[in-house]
C-alpha cells in the first residue's frame, strides 16, 4: 500500500503518516503549500509522481466560525476539492479515504448517531463537509470516516487551548456544559483509518473515542491532569455566543467500526494522558 496524504502536515495528517511509518508503508504526506487540494492540476501531478494505491484526505478548512463568513471558500476546500482527489484515485485505481465530521448532524437527538441517520448540518462548516462526503461517495472505492472533537500533537485543539489558558493564569476556566460529544485522539484515529483502509472498507464509518462528555467535563479532566489547583466552571452556550451553531449532542455510534475492525474504540482518557505527557516533555 502506497499512501498519498493531503493535508499531511496538519494535526491529523502527521498522525496518519506516523502510523504509516509504524506499519512500514510508503506514505507521502504533503502540506497545503505543496499540494493545495483545490488545485486539480497539482493533485494530479502528485498522484502521477507517487502512484498511490491509497489517497487520504486530511486537508480541510476547519475554522468552524470562519466558515460562516467564508462559506464559498469552505465549500471549495471541503467540498469541491474532493472531486479532484476522487478523480486522481480513480485514475490510479487507488482507494480513497475522506475524513468527515459529526457536524453533518444537527445534534438534536439523544441517541448515538448511526452512519445511515439523516444528515442535517446546522453550520456552513457542516454543509461544506457534507458536500465533500457526497463527492467522495460517488466513487465505489471510497471510505468516509466521520469523527469528532479531535485533539493531538501538532495542531490547534481544545486540550492545547486549555493548557495555554492555565499556563497564562487565565483561571478559573469557564467552559460550556451543554454540548455533549466524544473527544478523539488523532494517533488513535490514524490507527483506525489504517485498519479500515487495510480491510478495504467502503461507505461511511463512524469513529471516535470512548466516553461521551461535555466540553466542561473534558476541561475538568485536562485540568486534573495538568494542574489540580485549577478551578473549572460550567457555563451555558448562550453565554458564549459564536457565529457557527454547534450540535448539542454529537455522539457517533461506533458499532460498525467495532464490528468491521474487531477492535473496541479506545477511551479518550488514555490519549489525553499521553498527549499531556508529551506536551509537558516538549515544554521543558
Amino acid at each position, binding site marked *: 500500500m*502506497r*499512501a*498519498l496524504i493531503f493535508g*499531511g*502536515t496538519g494535526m491529523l495528517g*502527521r498522525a496518519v*503518516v*506516523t502510523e*504509516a*511509518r*509504524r506499519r512500514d508503508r*510508503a*506514505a*507521502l*504526506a*504533503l502540506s497545503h*503549500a*505543496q499540494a493545495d487540494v483545490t488545485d486539480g492540476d497539482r493533485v494530479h*501531478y502528485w498522484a502521477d*509522481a*507517487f502512484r498511490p494505491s491509497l489517497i487520504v484526505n486530511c486537508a480541510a478548512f476547519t475554522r468552524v466560525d470562519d466558515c460562516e463568513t467564508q462559506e464559498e471558500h469552505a465549500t471549495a476546500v471541503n467540498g469541491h476539492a474532493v472531486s479532484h482527489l476522487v478523480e486522481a484515485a480513480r485514475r490510479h485505481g487507488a482507494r480513497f479515504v475522506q475524513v468527515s465530521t459529526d457536524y453533518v448532524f444537527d445534534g438534536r437527538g439523544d441517541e448515538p448517531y448511526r452512519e445511515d441517520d439523516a444528515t442535517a448540518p446546522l453550520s456552513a462548516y457542516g454543509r461544506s463537509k457534507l458536500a465533500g462526503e457526497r463527492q467522495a461517495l460517488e466513487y465505489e472505492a471510497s471510505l468516509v470516516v466521520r469523527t469528532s472533537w479531535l485533539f493531538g500533537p501538532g495542531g490547534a485543539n481544545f486540550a492545547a487551548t486549555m493548557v495555554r489558558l492555565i499556563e497564562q493564569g487565565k483561571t478559573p476556566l469557564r467552559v460550556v456544559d451543554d454540548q455533549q460529544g466524544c473527544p478523539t485522539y488523532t494517533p488513535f484515529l490514524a490507527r483506525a483509518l489504517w485498519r479500515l483502509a487495510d480491510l478495504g472498507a467502503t461507505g461511511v464509518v463512524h469513529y471516535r473515542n470512548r466516553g461521551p462528555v461535555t466540553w466542561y467535563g473534558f476541561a475538568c479532566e485536562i485540568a486534573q491532569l495538568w494542574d489540580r489547583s485549577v478551578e473549572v466552571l460550567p457555563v451555558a452556550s448562550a453565554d458564549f455566543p459564536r457565529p457557527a451553531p454547534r450540535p448539542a449532542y454529537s455522539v457517533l455510534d461506533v458499532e460498525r467500526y467495532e464490528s468491521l475492525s474487531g477492535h473496541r474504540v479506545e477511551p479518550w482518557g488514555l490519549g489525553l494522558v499521553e498527549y499531556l505527557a508529551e506536551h509537558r516533555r516538549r515544554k521543558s
Partner: protein
Amino acid sequence: MRVLITGITGFAGSHLAEYLLAEHREVEVYGTYRWRSRRENIEHLTGRVEMREADMRDYSSLHSLLDEVRPEAIFHLAAQSFVPSSWRAPAETLGTNITGQTNLFEAVRYLKLDPVIQIACSSEEYGLVHPEETPIKEDNPLRPLSPYAVSKVAQDFMGYQYFQSYGLKVVRTRAFNHTGPRRGDVFVTSNFAKQVASIEAGLAEPVIRVGNLDAIRDFTDVRDTVRAYWLAVEKGRPGEVYNIATGTGYKIRQVLERLIALSDVEVKVETDPERLRPSDVEILIGDSTKFRADTGWEPRISFDQTLVDVLDYWRQQLQGGAR
C-alpha cells in the same frame, strides 16, 4: 520550526545558518559537528545555533541526534566535498557521502519523522557534457568523471529512491559552482584570491600558480545558493531534482584576470601540473529554469561583487595573521 543543518561548520553550512538566523527568525537552527571539526566558520554564531556532536558515518549518533531535535526540515550538506581528495582516497569519499546519507535517511525512517530533506547534490554529476548540451538541464545524462561525482550521483538517486519507496520528502538540489567569503583555499576562486592577497601583503612572490584556465564554470554566490536551499525546502517539490545556477559561464582565466584587476599588484601566472585534475570537466553551465519556476529564486549577487568579497575576505584573514 526546527531545522537541522548537517555540515554546519562547512562553507555552505555556515552561510546557510547565517541566512536563516538573519532572515527567518522563527527558525531554530541545530547543527552537527564532529569532534575534530574546525569551528572557525561558525564562531561568530556561537550561542545562536544549537550545536550537537554527530558523525554521519555513525548511525547511532545520528539516531540520538534526530530523536532529540525532531527537525521539520533537514539540510544535508555534510560531505567530503573536495574533488581532488576523492581521487586520492576514493573509498573515503564514497563511504562518507553515501553511507552518511543512508544513515540519515534510515534514522528518519526508524524514528517515524517526516521532515522535508534537502540534499546537496552537485553539478559534478553531469561530468562529461557535450557542447550542444549546455546550458545543462536536469534530464541531461549523468556521466560522472570523479569518485566525488559518483558519490553525489549515488546520493541523488538514493534521494529519489527513498522518495518513491517510503515517501520521504527529499528535495534534490544540484548546485553548480558556488563561492564566496570563507570558501576553502583549495577551491579555485578562493585560491586565486588568497594568492593575490598574499602577494599584496608581501607574503608571497608575485607569481600565481594555476591549473586548467580554459575550463568554463557557472559561479553562484554562496549566499544566493543557501537562499536557494531554503526555497527548495519551502517551495520545492519533494522527489524532484533542481539545478541551481546562474546560467552564465566564466572561463577560469577570466576569474583570474578579474581578481588581478581588483588589485594593484603586478603578477606573473605559472601553470602548475599539480593543479591539473586527472579528468577535468571542461564546461559546466546550468539551466535552472525549473527551480526558478517552482520557487521564484534568482541570483541577486553579481559575480564581480562575489570576487570583491572573496578578495576582501582573504585580505582580512592575512591581515589578522590567521594563516
